[in-house]
């Protein structure tokens, strides 16, 4: 059964700002300018770069009063979801929602623990607890936007969003929904910065060089990315089609790259996984990696998927900044007219997922 799913909208927020144009501008400039965050290292403080996101533009879509109890994690997701839905008619009773997240609502979870530690168990905040569950982003979005179709929150670290996408395809193929908003969200938190420093010390300083596979150069980030995916009715969509999502274990099988024009790899400067991309992507296949626009966080593949969709929609992949692999997209960009592009993510257990987009 060759079913393909049209992409009608994209939503993007991260260190580059928010929206498709901001992301493309950052990529054209060779990357986004990261902020600086402080990380405690024993008795002193070090500064590391971080691609921080700002959910403030959500106010253009949702009134402030409706966001009274909605925390930052949910707001980042909701901004991505609102952008993906912007300007498109979608029956909210037949609209599915799938959110992938690696770490969940970190800020609220740790704020909740702060209340427990500082005030005692009996003074823990119930509102914070309600927002600390991974599904809070989906729940808040569903409530604020009146989305009543099926809902799914997936937590699979860096494979969360690809896993979410696989489920979106099933719902659409079965016809239980007419459209799905699918993507992911993850926050930065000082605990993440602290852990990165313990694991990688000064290698956190960047700049990120994602195609330098053997080197640890990851820069921490946060953000959200969502696609609005529909069912094929013959009309040409703005962002091409999602063809397939494959997943498996590299210990038992190889991903099928088919006749893709290029592959956006989820290399984000973490050398442990970087070497896996080098080993498993055919050397003649042009690769691109855009982590210099948004950094490293589990839901970042949502942004890769959005770039692929934007690419097939406009007929070319953006020039990939700072690569060194000879078949990279670094110098030329890639012509996608009539060609497909795949998006690959591999995790530390060598599980992979490959999504394919075509015009």
């Amino acid at each position, binding site marked *: 059964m060759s079913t393909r799913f049209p992409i009608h909208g994209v939503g993007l927020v991260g260190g580059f700002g928010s929206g498709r144009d901001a992301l493309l501008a950052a990529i054209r400039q060779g990357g986004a300018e990261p902020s600086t965050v402080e990380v405690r290292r024993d008795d002193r403080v070090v500064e590391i770069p971080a691609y921080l996101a700002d959910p403030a533009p959500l106010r253009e879509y949702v009134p402030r009063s409706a966001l009274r109890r909605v925390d930052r994690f949910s707001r980042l997701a909701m901004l991505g979801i609102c952008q993906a839905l912007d300007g498109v008619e979608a029956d909210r009773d037949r609209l599915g929602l799938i959110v992938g997240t690696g770490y969940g609502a970190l800020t609220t979870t740790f704020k909740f623990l702060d209340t427990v530690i500082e005030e005692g168990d009996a003074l823990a905040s119930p509102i914070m607890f309600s927002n600390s569950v*991974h599904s809070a982003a989906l*729940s808040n979005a569903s409530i604020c936007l009146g989305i009543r179709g099926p809902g*799914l929150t997936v937590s699979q670290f860096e494979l969360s969003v690809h896993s979410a996408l696989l489920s979106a395809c099933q719902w659409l193929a079965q016809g239980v929904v007419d459209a799905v908003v699918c993507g992911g969200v993850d926050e930065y938190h000082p605990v993440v910065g602290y852990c990165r420093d313990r694991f990688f010390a000064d290698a956190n300083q960047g700049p990120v060089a994602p195609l330098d596979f053997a080197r640890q150069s990851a820069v921490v980030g946060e953000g959200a990315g969502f696609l609005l995916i529909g069912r094929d009715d013959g009309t040409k969509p703005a962002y091409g089609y999602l063809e397939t999502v494959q997943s498996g274990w590299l210990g038992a099988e190889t991903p099928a790259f088919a006749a893709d024009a290029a592959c956006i790899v989820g290399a984000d400067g973490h050398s442990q996984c970087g070497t896996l991309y080098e080993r498993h992507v055919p050397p003649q296949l042009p690769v691109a990696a855009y982590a210099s626009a948004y950094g490293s966080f589990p839901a970042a593949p949502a942004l890769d998927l959005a770039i692929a969709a934007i690419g097939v929609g406009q007929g070319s992949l953006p020039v990939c900044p700072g690569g060194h692999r000879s078949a990279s997209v670094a110098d030329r960009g890639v012509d996608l007219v009539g060609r497909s592009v795949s998006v690959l993510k591999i995790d530390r257990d060598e599980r992979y997922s490959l999504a394919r987009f075509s015009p």
Partner: protein
Amino acid sequence: MTSRAARQGLPVTGTGCITAVGRNLDENLAGLFAGLRRMGPSARVRSTHEVRYPVFEVDGSVLPEGYAEGPECLRCGGLALVAAREAIQSACLLAADLKRRRVGVCIGTTVGSAMNNETFYRGFRDGKRPDMDAIAGFLQANPSSVVARELELNGPCQTVTNACSSGTVAVGQAAEWIRAGICDIAIAGGADALCRTVYNGFAALQIMDKEPVRPFDARRCGLNLGEGAGLLVLESAASQAARGVPAVGRLVGYGNACDAFHISAPHPDGDGLRTAIETAMQQAGLASSDLAFINAHGTGTPENDRVEGQLYPDLLPDVPFLSTKGYTGHTLGASGGVEAAFSLACLNAGMLPASIGFAEPDPGFPGRPVRTNTPITGAAALSSSLAFGGNNAVIVLAKGERA
């Protein structure tokens, strides 16, 4: 129930379950029919609340090595492994069989994916140099990854974090993988562990009962937390036929819908639950007269039980229902998987346990759960889960060939 509907579903060829009641499904069923309630203050989860809320705790001695110590999230993986091994054995699958096929894993959880380790965070806050074991543990703890890694499975992996509906959603989602041909076999359900952060959170919401939980009872005032895992082995019809293994049951319907109402209270009229039930029943091709029973969510909170107690007599009239949470507590992400395993077992046994904890009917809604162990003759059952934040998930299960 029509035989056409029975054939439509996906075979369930194995089941595994561990809760406070028992270490495997047989022990659980025996406990249910004997009216066993194994609850009390937690041995592991300590808190400074005046009240020591009763919980339904699993005997940790059955956990595989490495999963009982360490952060609470890792305990979920251990519980999932115990249930997965039982499920695979009951499906007559050997390790070699699993490696030869594409086997997916879809497990619902709350604690298994949560980075809320208090010991680590206290050390971090206090400016100390906390041991990174808690973080390493968290990165290894994802329950679907644990099962896939330990059993060396090659297939899709998905941990569902839909709060209290996770286990039911995971079963439904895994079935969709099989129908789409993405894998031939899937291990699906839920796993969750008692956790201090969750305990404190529910206490803060004032929805825990200091007495043993009383689902649907007029005097109910909250839930008791529990822990455990319940997993099913789902298979394609072709795979089951090739292996010649009789089905424990069949998954014939799945519905999932959101209330879009409130972050911690269900829709007062059960709108999302109604939609999910209608979807699942339509997929199953069944009418309410085909249902032997409903395994309700029945947490014992005033609002949840009122919504279900109002909806079931209206939408599915004359169908007996019960909550099994009086035996297991609310096992959060595990509950949908545990209740799916229980429902299949009850269908095959032709018997329902009493909805323990219920004594006094609530005049506020017409629904009354079964008070005693009750023989049943129908061939299908509905199991429902209502999550925090308004997600509703429902599955319809049919009797197997191993009655």
